[in-house]
Each structure stands twice: as C-alpha cells, then as structure tokens.
C-alpha cells in the first residue's frame, strides 16, 4: 500500500546529540516537506524539496539540514539537539492530482524530546 513512513515514532535524546529523523514515501511523489508542530498548535515549515538534489529552507530551518538523494527518502538532521527542539516533526509529500492540484499526505510524525 502506498504510504509515507516516519521513524522513529518517539525519541528521547540528550542535549548536544546529533539526530536524524527518517521519512520515506512509496507513492513516487516529487515534493516532500518537513513541518514542526507543538502539540495541538499550528504547523511551521522547516524544509521542503521539489525533487532529487533540490532542497529549500522554510521558516524554522536554521538549526537543521535535509538531503534528497532519492525521490522516496527525505531525512531531517539536527546537528546538536537542544531542549527547544522538543516537538513533533511531521513529514509530508505531495504530487499533482488528476484534478490539477497538489494533495498532501502526512506521515504519523516523530515526537522528539530533548533532555
């Protein structure tokens, strides 16, 4: 079944550690996104990609990096985790539908806690 997968689902890590959040989709979508969301709050765009070897920064990108070496894979890396990074990270992908719009599909998210 075509889907978008995020791992790990939950992560508790110490301050200063380097972490990579994984996101993969099996739908062949060209566009992928990372959003950060505090519980029940609005989503903030961190990074996005419109294809292989193409990445762009969003509003909250300064403390993280992404790569897009393969269409299906879009990992997010925090070089040095801080307590302020404690949040939920949501990955999404989209493609042009038959109706001419980009429909977004979201993964289940990674809940990160930095202690």
């Amino acid at each position: 079944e075509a889907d978008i997968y995020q791992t790990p689902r939950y992560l508790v890590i110490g301050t200063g550690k380097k972490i990579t959040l994984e996101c993969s989709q099996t739908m062949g979508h060209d566009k992928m996104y990372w959003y950060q969301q505090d519980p029940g709050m609005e989503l903030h765009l961190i990074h996005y990609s419109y294809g292989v070897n193409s990445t762009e920064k969003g509003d909250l990108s300064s403390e993280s990096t992404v790569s897009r070496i393969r269409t299906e894979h879009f990992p997010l890396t925090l070089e040095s985790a801080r307590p302020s990074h404690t949040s939920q990270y949501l990955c999404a992908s989209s493609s042009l539908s038959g109706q001419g719009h980009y429909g977004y599909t979201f993964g289940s998210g990674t809940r990160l806690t930095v202690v």
Partner: protein
Amino acid sequence: GIQVEQSPPDLILQEGANSTLRCNFSDSVNNLQWFHQNPWGQLINLFYIPSGTKQNGRLSATTVATERYSLLYISSSQTTDSGVYFCAVEFSGNTPLVFGKGTRLSVIA
C-alpha cells in the same frame, strides 16, 4: 504579511450538534485544504477547495475566494470528530502550504 486565521480557536459540542468553522486568508490562493488532526496526531486531508462547495458525508466546505474565506461545516457531530481542524493555504504557485492555528473541537456524548 501572509496570514491564515481560523475561528473559533476552541469549540465544545454535544454529540449530534452542528458546527461551522471559519478560515480567513490574506491574499488570493491557488490551493486551500482542510485537514483533521486526530488525538493521536495523524493529519488527514478532508477537502481540497480553493473555490466553490464540496460535500463528503456529514462534512461540507465552501470557499468564497473573492472574499477570502472558507467555511467547514460539520453536521450531526460524533465523538470521533474530536481533534484539531486546520485550514492550509498555498498563496502562490509552487509554494508549500501555510497552516492556520487550527480549531480544537471536542464532541462530548
């Protein structure tokens, strides 16, 4: 600047009641979508509706693009409708969705 504003921020309903959620946006849009985030955090796309009206079961949505607002109607609400409803907008071609702050809905039995 670019803004997406949702109201009300919180809503409590008795099971079976109807409700209307509103989304105002600050500029013309290429894409407007409504999402439901369940209590476990999963975001589900409800409607793609940059203009016009659509219905899906007990849910319907209307966007009046010229007046820069969209409405989400929930009829005969059920406890499973609880969660946060987000409006998200693409303001210009080929840019990611910008999300509003959401409306938190609680449906009580």
